[in-house]
């Protein structure tokens, strides 16, 4: 019964999306307002239908309705309600269903917000988004049907993937990431609309910039939450492994970040238009590529869903988006040609250009490393993998240069900078950077990478803060305001600029934390009988006892805990565990992390001997890791501050007239 409702919602959703696409194209060609409205409303209906299908799936999961194959595979009668709920996006078919909901919700939001604005662009954008939605509905109608029924109905299901039911962060990381991925369809649709209608003007650019920044915020938060999840759950003491699927999320992030910066130059004149269009298109194609890589079994990864025929469909989707984007760009190439003169060598424009070269260069390197195993196998039949060391080595110079630019770009003037300006703005930051690096050596940091990062971060942070202080002092003096009030006044009057600075500061904090934690981490493995102790970097761990019992929340899961006393800068009794799930071959580690301002103490149970109670423990002392999450949060805050609606209506944004839906 539930399966029939869900299935019907999907099939009708496909029909409605196709109708929305057709009506919107006709409306765009004829200018018929009624047709445009019909197309728009059909998108809302598609959103409602996917919400209904998701609702049906959630009801089936919470009610353990094993007559639906997806539920039988990913749920058990003992699964706690929270993990039943998030199983909506924890496996292949459900994730596509959830994806479709988010995509149609973003589309509806855009179309409703501008229901009576941008009459030339919106029907084409609606058509583009409806085609993307129709693609996902088609995937769910044919190869990836989430509502396949099974008879006879099993009394017990398989339960959720063990790794994904081990930490509440699974409730946060995928939705954030998916909101980012799906939201990036909007700038693509707007750009398609602008290319078709030859309206690549300021109006389009303002819209695209804003509608890229919002999904970018979610994508950023999703990536950081994913790194945090990996750190808290997987028990290897790290947070980023250059896994193909991590790269798949990073790639659109890199190109979208490049776009956010290039848009600022493009807004000031007609230069960089082609480039901006290419970045938006590439970003969308990369989001689809990410979906393809995770859902086709093409690349081995801890994130891979099971292999399925869906791969071929997504491949077709990736290629279709690529071809449509490329054809439109080539078609409109004459319109896109820049008219601006090349910028002065030392100017904010050239800093932005360099920024874009670095971001796209890095994206290309990461893409190459990710696809290289495929390429090598296609060319020579050789199977190989590209590991983290390669990615670290290749990306380090890019990141170093970007850290430098994070401070230089905002402090450089538009136009050409004079020597006087440069001396004025950069001598003090350079000295602070040197001081930071020197302090780093005093504090025991070794190696070029962390010292260079610290120095560059010190330089850039000072350059940024100097800009804020300069502006706040000017305002304070002229209005007689206090420091904080003047700074807040300056920031809220130009949210974009100061939100950007805050995001840059967050990046600097996270970069220092990444560099220091990577170089300063110490680890040890200890085999301890009950009563024995081991020491590492000022910490002493004592193994008290081994406890084995079923988990209270889900008795099918058997947990083996080591009770470990920790003495040192941080102290407490920790219980790292290994959990045996009935549907998982390997036991799942449940590491324990104690966090302080300076360092994390990270303890994992690797193995145990039930006979003697002996345990193998792995200890990590990871400096500054918590600051990676803080930095990530600051980036998100900064970007949110930048797009928060201020009192002034931004130039170029049309106001919506009431009374139209």
């Amino acid at each position: 019964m539930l399966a029939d409702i869900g299935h019907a919602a999907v099939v009708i959703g496909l029909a409605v999306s196709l109708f929305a696409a057709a009506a919107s194209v006709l409306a765009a060609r004829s200018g018929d307002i009624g047709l445009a409205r019909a197309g728009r409303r059909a998108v809302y209906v598609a959103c409602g239908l996917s919400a209904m299908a998701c609702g049906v799936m959630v009801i089936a999961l919470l009610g353990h309705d094993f007559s639906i194959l997806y539920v039988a595979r990913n749920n058990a009668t003992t699964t706690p309600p929270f993990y039943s709920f998030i199983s909506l996006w924890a496996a292949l078919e459900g994730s596509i269903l959830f994806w479709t909901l988010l995509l149609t919700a973003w589309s509806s939001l855009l179309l409703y917000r501008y229901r009576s604005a941008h009459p030339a662009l919106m029907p084409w954008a609606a058509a583009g988004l409806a085609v993307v939605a129709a693609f996902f509905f088609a995937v769910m109608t044919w190869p990836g049907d989430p509502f396949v029924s099974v008879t006879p109905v099993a009394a017990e299901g398989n339960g959720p993937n063990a790794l994904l039911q081990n930490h509440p962060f699974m409730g946060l990381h995928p939705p954030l990431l998916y909101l980012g991925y799906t939201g990036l369809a909007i700038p693509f649709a707007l750009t398609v609309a602008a290319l078709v209608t030859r309206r690549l003007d300021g109006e389009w650019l303002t819209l695209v910039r804003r509608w890229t920044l919002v999904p970018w915020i979610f994508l950023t938060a999703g990536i950081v939450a994913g790194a945090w999840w990996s750190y808290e759950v997987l028990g290897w003491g790290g947070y980023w492994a250059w896994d193909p699927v991590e790269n798949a999320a990073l790639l659109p992030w890199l190109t979208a970040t490049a776009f956010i910066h290039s848009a600022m130059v493009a807004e000031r004149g007609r230069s960089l238009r082609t480039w901006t269009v290419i970045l938006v298109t590439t970003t969308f194609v990369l989001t689809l590529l990410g979906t393809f890589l995770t859902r086709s079994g093409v690349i081995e990864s801890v994130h891979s869903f099971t292999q399925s025929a869906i791969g071929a469909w997504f491949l077709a989707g990736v290629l279709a988006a690529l071809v449509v984007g490329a054809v439109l760009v080539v078609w409109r190439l004459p319109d896109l040609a820049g008219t601006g003169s090349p910028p002065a060598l030392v100017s904010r424009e050239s800093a932005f250009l360099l920024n874009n070269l670095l971001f796209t260069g890095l994206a290309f390197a990461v893409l190459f490393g990710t696809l290289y195993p495929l390429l090598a196998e296609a060319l020579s039949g050789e199977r190989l993998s590209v590991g983290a060391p390669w990615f670290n080595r290749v990306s380090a110079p890019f990141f170093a240069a970007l850290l430098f630019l994070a401070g230089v770009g905002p402090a450089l003037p538009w136009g050409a900078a004079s020597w006087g300006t440069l001396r004025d703005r950069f001598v003090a930051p350079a000295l602070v950077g040197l001081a930071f690096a020197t302090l780093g050596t005093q504090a025991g940091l070794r190696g070029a990478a962390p010292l260079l990062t610290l120095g560059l971060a010190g330089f850039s942070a000072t350059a940024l803060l100097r800009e804020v202080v300069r502006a706040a002092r000017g305002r304070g003096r002229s209005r007689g305001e206090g420091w904080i009030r003047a700074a807040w006044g300056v920031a809220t009057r130009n949210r974009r600029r100061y939100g950007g600075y805050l995001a840059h500061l967050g990046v600097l904090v996270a970069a220092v934390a990444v560099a220091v934690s990577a170089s300063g981490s110490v680890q040890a493995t200890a085999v301890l009988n009950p009563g024995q102790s081991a020491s590492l970097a000022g910490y002493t761990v004592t193994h008290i006892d081994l406890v084995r019992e079923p988990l209270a929340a889900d008795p099918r899961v058997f947990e083996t805990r080591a009770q470990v006393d920790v003495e040192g800068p941080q102290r407490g009794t920790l219980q790292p565990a290994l959990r045996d799930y009935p549907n998982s071959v390997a036991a799942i580690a449940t590491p324990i992390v104690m966090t302080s301002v300076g360092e994390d103490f990270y303890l994992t149970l690797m193995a145990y001997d039930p006979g003697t109670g002996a345990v193998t423990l792995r200890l990590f002392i990871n400096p500054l890791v918590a600051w990676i999450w803080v930095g990530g949060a600051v980036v998100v805050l900064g970007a949110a501050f930048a797009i928060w609606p201020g009192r002034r209506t931004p130039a170029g944004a049309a106001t919506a007239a009431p009374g139209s839906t």
Partner: protein
Amino acid sequence: MRAARWLLVPLLAIPIGWVLFSGLGRDPSEIPSPLIGEPMPAFSLTTLDGRTLSSAELSGAPVVVNFWASWCIPACVEEHPVLMDLAARYGEQVLIVGILYDDTPQDALEFLVRYGDGGWTQLDDPSGSVGLAFGVLGPPETFFVDAAGIVRAKHYGPLTQATMARNLALIGIGP
């Protein structure tokens, strides 16, 4: 010139499509191993019934080397019937060698009593050095070695009839 720029589209789409398409049939559980195309690492170990067997004695026939353990449940239990079937069907053409991975001979013998002993050679690797030489990460892992002693394939995780048949073909065994 105006027409030439349209060449950009196929120049972009065809190579990308081809690379991605080539990956569609891949089985990601077939992890690349540096041993593939190389001679099998040499070893000399004691069998569970007390004889000594060196890798030199294995040359001349295709060999399936299966690293396993009695504690590796359910994966090693799952693939056991596949190996039994291999011994029954192709026992004449292929040598099967089981090598214990981090396990004791007593536990391994109990496993064979419970799940069936196909009669192939079982070797104890008490120091784990042979597992290390083969680059085994965790059992079960299976190496397919051709008659010339060259490793042709490695399978990670439990074998199925399908993966067994595909890998056997690589060392010249098949229906």
